């Protein structure tokens, strides 16, 4: 069992707020899991920070986009449905790949300007 910065033990599993499955906090990468690997949702009370500062709202945090970390790895960006706070979290190897891809391509599928007009500029680099 792992523990947080204050030394209190963290639960070995949690149940997802959205899809209800029981999720182990252990990951293949040995980081502590914060989000559900099935639906990429987490509760806005984080295990990443000391309990003393954990005045989080407890609402559902939903995945909104993918960012790329310095080393090239993907990070999941989430927004809290309760307080609108943003958070980022490592993408784990056993996360739902289809949902990740959908998040990654969503901006291009819904561009606010016609991509047709960008073609030449894009090709020019």
């Amino acid at each position, binding site marked *: 069992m792992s523990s947080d910065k204050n030394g209190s033990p963290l639960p070995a599993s949690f149940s997802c707020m959205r899809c209800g499955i029981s999720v182990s906090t252990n990951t293949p990468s040995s980081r502590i899991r914060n989000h559900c690997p099935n639906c990429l949702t987490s509760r806005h009370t984080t295990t990443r920070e000391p309990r003393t500062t954990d005045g989080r709202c407890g609402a559902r945090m939903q995945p909104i986009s993918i*960012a790329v970390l310095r080393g090239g*790895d993907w990070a999941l*960006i989430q927004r809290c449905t309760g307080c609108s706070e*943003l*958070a980022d979290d490592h993408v784990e190897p056993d996360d739902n790949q289809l949902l990740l891809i959908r*998040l990654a391509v969503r901006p*291009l599928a819904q561009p606010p300007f016609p991509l047709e007009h960008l073609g030449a500029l894009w090709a020019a680099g």
Partner: protein
Amino acid sequence: MPRRNNERPGRRQPHGRTQRQKRMPGRNRDEYGKSFRCLHCRLDVSKSAPGTAHRNHCPNCLSSKHVDRSCPGDRASTCHARMEPISIAVRGDGEWVIIHRCVGCGDLGSNRAAGDDNALALTRLAVTAIRHLGSPLRIQLAIPPE
């Protein structure tokens, strides 16, 4: 659509920091006036923009400055470091939102894309994740490794 010029040579002042300090008397005008100077590409940016009440990012390079703490326009942060654009999210109504991360303190922020933002810079940001497909995704999509 503004020209693509994020890497325009000579845009960045070689002694930006010193010059900024000399401009201190004018700082109030910068903070609360009608325009701000981009911390990244040094463009003079008008604060009024089509489609948003609080423009807080540069339409050229999409960089921002850490001035808001919890909601756009509250001006409650004292950090004031540069915030770099890291991702594009799409709202329920289809609107693009730029996600920023502060290079000073690591905080995240978001700001709606404005009508006169550099479309090429926005699109580049939008494809960043696809350009960095990790190996599990490449295997799943049957894309050969780079």
